[in-house]
């Protein structure tokens, strides 16, 4: 009989930290990562020697970058590992830390993510599968999905662009975001077009950044006298990959539907209870597809609801309150960990100008090439 996170030891997020997502600078990755890690330790009021295991989500830095970074904090002999899972690397490092604490392998674990832009080394491809694939950017696939969705649902270019208008507005209130400018509908719709209907501001920027999160057990909360008023509990942790779907199924939506569905089932939390969501909005169309796949609204309804403000901060549920990948940015390794940082801030009521009122339950969601999907449910205690 297998178990889910909910059946094991409770796990709590008690420390969060970020280094601002931004265009590539001359700063070494070590500096970015340490900034986020120290912020997370300070937030938890813990020291590096208290960390019993460490996972680093990274996809672009090459072999074993973690040790070279954390040696500046002290050499404590703990288990460490790099976690590479494409765009979901930082979500997967978080899940590994959660698993350690849930199983009782550790009482205090840290997940982090750090990356700087560079050419990724891709796994095996080639053959007839890649008749044109190697020539196209990731945006190519999502432009194809966007045109299909627009033709089927009858939504306009403005509906699609409203995702980017909302997320830039949120990002403008986030000091850690790569894009911190409010953008009008007209600005979002302006060329250059990247692919299909997707303009530049409907595609996420890939820059540098870092994020870190400390997770602990109840034993650690007692031992370190951690402030119980700020606790956020991990209610579900689900990791999945693509499987064979019936002919004609939209793979991207279905993978999210199944993974999120498992998280709802394991935790007993329903879509109608979700207050804040950080999802994989690398391209504007994705937020529409995933909001529907998550059951936050009916099929074909998301675009009009987003345009009408239903998913604004203060709306029925805040989608991408950090600005999401579109405005906060998508530095790859840190992104998934950074989503946990934002949702934790929201559930603590510490999100300042971006605060969604009465946020009690949040969801994080990343997908990555492969194709993989990672979902976590978090709840204020």
């Amino acid at each position, binding site marked *: 009989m297998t178990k889910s996170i909910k059946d094991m030891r409770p796990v709590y997020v008690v420390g969060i930290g970020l280094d601002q997502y931004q265009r590539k600078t001359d700063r070494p990755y070590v500096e970015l990562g340490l900034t986020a890690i120290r912020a997370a330790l300070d937030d938890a009021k813990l020291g590096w020697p208290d960390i019993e295991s460490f996972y680093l989500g990274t996809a672009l830095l090459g072999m074993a970058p973690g040790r070279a970074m954390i040696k500046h904090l002290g050499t404590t002999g703990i288990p460490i590992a790099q976690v590479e899972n494409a765009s979901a690397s930082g979500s997967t490092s978080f899940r590994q830390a959660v698993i350690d604490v849930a199983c009782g392998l550790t009482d205090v674990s840290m997940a982090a993510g750090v990356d700087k832009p560079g050419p990724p080394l891709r796994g095996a491809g*080639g*053959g*007839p*599968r*890649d*008749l*044109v*694939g*190697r*020539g*196209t*950017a990731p*945006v*190519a696939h999502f*432009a*194809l*999905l*966007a*045109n*299909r969705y627009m*033709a089927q649902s009858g939504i306009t270019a403005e509906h699609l662009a409203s995702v980017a208008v909302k997320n830039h507005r949120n990002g403008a209130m986030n000091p850690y975001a790569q894009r911190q400018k409010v953008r009008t509908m007209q600005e979002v719709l302006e060329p*250059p*077009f*990247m*692919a*299909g209907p997707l303009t530049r501001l409907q595609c996420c920027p890939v820059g540098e950044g870092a994020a870190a999160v400390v997770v602990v057990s109840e034993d650690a909360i007692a031992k370190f006298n951690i402030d119980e008023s700020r606790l956020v509990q991990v209610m579900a942790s689900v990791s999945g990959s693509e499987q*064979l779907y019936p*002919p004609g199924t939209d793979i991207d939506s279905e993978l999210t539907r199944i993974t999120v569905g498992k998280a709802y089932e394991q935790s007993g939390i329903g879509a109608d209870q979700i207050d804040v969501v950080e999802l994989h909005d690398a391209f504007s169309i994705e937020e529409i597809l995933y909001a529907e796949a998550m059951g936050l609204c009916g099929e074909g309804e998301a675009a009009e609801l987003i345009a009408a403000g239903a998913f604004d901060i203060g709306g029925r549920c805040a989608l991408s309150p950090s600005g999401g990948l579109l405005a906060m940015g998508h530095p790859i390794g840190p992104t998934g960990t950074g989503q946990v940082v934002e949702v934790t801030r929201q559930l603590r009521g510490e999100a300042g100008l971006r605060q969604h009122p009465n946020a009690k339950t949040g969801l994080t969601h990343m997908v990555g090439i492969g194709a993989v999907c990672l979902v976590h449910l978090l709840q204020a205690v």
Partner: protein
Amino acid sequence: MAYDKPIPSQGIHTQPFWAGTKEGKLMLPRCEDCNRVHWYPRLICPHCHSKNLEWIEGSGEGRIHTYAVQHLAFGPWQKETPYVTAYIDLNEGDRMLTVLKGVDPLKPEEIKIGAKVKVEFEEANEDTFIPFWRVIEE
């Protein structure tokens, strides 16, 4: 002009496909146990995991599932932008990503989802002919 785009690698399990392209045939893998066609070629059937696969000559026809004008590309494809990619629903089943020929990337509104398309092959080198698709009827 010589074909200057990336040329897909060949393997034992894809050899019948490439051999077909040289003769202008779209060869497709089909499972002898569950009778379903799949794209791209694999060593086992992705539907039922059987190893009993055969090759059939496809009709070379299908319909546009969706399309998009590409303004951003890498390598030698870069100089072709804007060009149009599409997912083709093959008449035999499953879906293929392609570059659409004979359409105007500056007038995407003229391209119709559901339009009938036919395959054609372009010589990349003496062993490799790459399939592209062309709209034959709206």
